[in-house]
């Protein structure tokens, strides 16, 4: 019988993901490609927001989309229909996307020729918040029907985001959603988060979000490269 060798590694798996995410961000910086990580619970309107956003920014920004889903390619097809290159990443039952999977997904897009890529993460308010995908900015959606108490129930998700979009604003008359309470709760967890109440359906509030998004893309892509 062959000898057993015990190899000491002491490697932190979560730190490895952070290192990989940082390496991916450095690569995207060299390529001048902005990566946005879009997170939310299922059915909060990520794809609708994405379609409306792409329609508005497409004329001046070259965009690509990474669609992460446990299964199916429904979302990727809807994106492809409007002429935006998209890649479907199947996580095969997994609840989140990590930096390595994001990297694999990006290999299906010519990132060097794109100004920005939007990653539509798995619909889940827990696990995606724990893994750095390598994105430059993270944004989450909280839809009006979900309720204004969500920041209290999923604090980590609200604290890791650069911006929170309160979506489906057109549903306000039908739900007891307290916009002021939601804003206060988000700010309590994350004083730096930008908050954009909007409706991708009616277009209400879209402009402020689009302006912020385009500013982030421009700022990242015009960063000086350090050699």
């Amino acid at each position: 019988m062959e000898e057993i060798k015990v190899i000491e590694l002491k490697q932190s798996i979560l730190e490895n993901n952070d290192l990989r995410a940082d390496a991916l961000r450095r690569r995207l910086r060299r390529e001048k490609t902005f990566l946005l990580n879009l997170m939310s619970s299922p059915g909060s309107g990520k794809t609708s927001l994405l379609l409306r956003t792409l329609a508005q920014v497409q004329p001046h920004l070259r965009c690509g989309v990474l669609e992460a889903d446990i299964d199916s390619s429904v979302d990727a097809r809807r994106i492809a229909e409007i002429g935006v290159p998209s890649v479907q990443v199947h996580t095969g039952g997994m609840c989140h996307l990590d930096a390595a999977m994001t990297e694999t997904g990006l290999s299906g897009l010519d990132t060097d020729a794109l100004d920005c890529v939007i990653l539509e993460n798995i619909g889940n308010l827990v696990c995606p918040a724990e893994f750095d995908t390598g994105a430059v900015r993270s944004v989450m959606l909280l839809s009006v029907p979900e309720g204004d108490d969500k920041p209290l129930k999923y604090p980590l998700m609200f604290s890791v985001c650069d911006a929170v979009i309160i979506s489906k604003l057109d549903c306000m008359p039908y739900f007891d959603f307290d916009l002021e309470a939601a804003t206060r709760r988000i700010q309590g967890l994350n004083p730096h988060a930008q908050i954009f109440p909007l409706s991708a359906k009616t277009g209400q509030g879209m402009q402020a979000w689009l302006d912020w998004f385009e500013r982030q893309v421009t700022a990242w892509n015009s960063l000086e490269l350090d050699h």
Partner: protein
Amino acid sequence: MHELGIMSRVLELAIQTAEQHGANKVVEISLQVGALSGILPHYLSSYFDMISTKTRAEGAHLNIEQSPAIFLCAECGAQSVYPEFGPDFICQSCGSDQLTLVSGSEFRVVTVAVR
């Protein structure tokens, strides 16, 4: 559910280690799981068995060591140890709630045994 993703990185690392050492089999993987890492050991084993099938780590033994959450009190400097995630996070010597987590959120591959 994210134990699956974490275990696939562990598997990747173990197989890579075996290859680097010219070994055919991974026999044992020792993991250190912090009490506040949010990772449940029970799921680690079942996911590992599922994803390691037909790899050189198939049948490897998982040795899971759970480490406690240790907090440092900013007011009296004492360390409080929480073997289980309790509801009242206060310093066990002075009762202050000014606690900083010193360890317990880690998830490490400590050793990989190959043959």
